[in-house]
């Protein structure tokens, strides 16, 4: 029932991209997203698309997995496209009843959908090739300097990894409770909004109770293993940069440079 959500889904494979340090992937993703908004001109976007295609190729993740993530934003995308098409003032191309499609509107709509598409696919490359644990590890290490400003970086990272870990568990639990209530002839679908909301009580109460129970168990298990948080805590797999990671940074820089230059050469 709820298995189609791809959030934080990891695709197991053995590739250069999978082996990269999570910090590199995080940094590169952020740079990539910024570049999508900084680039101008067709040249910039062609470079971004080519770069992304190369990374996907290297990652060994089938392309249809990337597209899965796109499905969730189709609705958002179509709304943006429609609004931009019809509501941008400028030189009219054709009219439909009272709405006018303008040249500028078409340009903006195409631009936006390309940007959004590349952005979603780009970030799903990161989540598909990095386990949630690696991701939070990388984040923790990247944000380490904030410790000096009394930001509890380790605790935040720990909370994030626990939250990520709990998503599939709670989803499974929801599925189970839903079925159990359906077996008692519960009705989650019919009726008006208020009735529907009310019908969720038999689902939500057990779900919350189980979430608390699990949290409690986890806290107990952590205590039993003498977990005390960030200070002086060592890692089983400490992160350190290797040659390929520096190479990756270099590639990203090359990409940025190429994007800027080509964007200047081939404006819209």
């Amino acid at each position: 029932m709820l298995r189609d959500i791809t959030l934080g889904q990891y695709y197991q494979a053995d590739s250069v991209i999978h082996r990269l340090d999570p910090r590199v992937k995080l940094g590169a993703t952020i740079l990539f997203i910024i570049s999508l908004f900084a680039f101008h001109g067709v040249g910039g976007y062609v470079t971004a698309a080519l770069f992304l295609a190369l990374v996907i190729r290297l990652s060994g993740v089938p392309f249809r997995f990337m597209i899965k993530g796109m499905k969730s934003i189709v609705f958002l995308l179509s709304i943006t496209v429609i609004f931009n098409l019809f509501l941008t003032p400028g030189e009219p191309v054709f009219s439909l009843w009272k709405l006018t499609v303008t040249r500028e509107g078409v340009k903006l709509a195409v631009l936006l959908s390309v940007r959004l598409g590349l952005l979603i696919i780009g970030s799903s490359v990161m989540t598909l090739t990095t386990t949630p644990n690696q991701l939070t590890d990388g984040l923790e290490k990247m944000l380490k300097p904030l410790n000096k400003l009394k930001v509890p970086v380790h605790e935040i990272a720990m909370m994030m990894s626990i939250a990520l870990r709990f998503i599939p568990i709670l989803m499974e639990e929801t599925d189970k409770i839903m079925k159990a209530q359906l077996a008692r002839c519960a009705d989650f679908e019919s009726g008006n909004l208020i009735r529907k909301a009310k019908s969720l009580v038999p689902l939500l109460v057990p779900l919350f109770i189980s979430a608390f129970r699990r949290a409690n168990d986890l806290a107990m298990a952590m205590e039993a293993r003498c977990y005390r948080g960030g200070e002086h805590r060592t890692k089983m797999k400490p992160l350190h940069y290797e040659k390929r990671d520096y190479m990756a940074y270099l590639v990203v820089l090359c990409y940025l440079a190429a994007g800027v230059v080509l964007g200047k050469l081939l404006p819209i």
Partner: protein
Amino acid sequence: MPIILDKVSHIYGEDTAMAVRALDNISLVIPDGQFIGLIGHTGSGKSTLVQHLNGLMKATSGAVYFNGEDIDSEGFDKKKLRSKVGLVFQYPEHQLFETDVFSDVCFGPKNLGLTKKETELRAYAALKLVGLEDAYFYQSPFDLSGGQKRRVAIAGVLAMKPEVLVLDEPTAGLDPKGRDEILDQIAALKRETGITVLLVSHSMEDVAKYVDRIIVMNKGRVMYDDEPREVFKQYHELEAVGLAAPQVTYIMKELREHGYDVGDEVTTIEEAKQEILAYFRER
């Protein structure tokens, strides 16, 4: 009302790299009034199978018939089916949600659209059937002990007056005393109301004492489907798939090997007692 499964298969995650064939071509007849044990190792497809019986899961191929009607056909009333085939899930106490025990048990019959009076009568009768004392009726279900919670949850399904009662591992996580109590109660319920009971378990001991037919599942297929004594004769094959005959069967075999002439088709302690006493009386 009989349930018939005709070549039912279920594949999880079809069309993906992780496709798992949980049920493979299962054909079964569950006639009225039988007490059936469904046994299999973890991951053998027991839980998947029982969820097909009341239409919570849809077969990838094959069909399930309840009282002669295909349950996946257009216009079939699934709600009615679920009230007739009561399914008690594993750890059913995790589904409790009401503020007191009595209203929780009322949830099922209320969903059937019964009158308030009828609902409450059924809830009361169901709670009596599982042997819960009146004193607990208006307590929060979360204040009860594990075994009591489980009874309340079972009563929640019984209150719909099912004709077939399916229990998925009803004794998981209970201590031996709680386990015996629950199983005895189910057996008593079976005797009194004459409904069909399907008991899912991975423990032969639990099942041997009560049921009159055992279905053994392995890797999504039906391995054996026979009377307990016939099934336990195959104890070598059972061991190969991670199951075992009841311990008492092994003891009787050992006794035979040591020259005591006792029957080796024994599956319960009571039978073993009779056999051994008979042997010594003859001497």
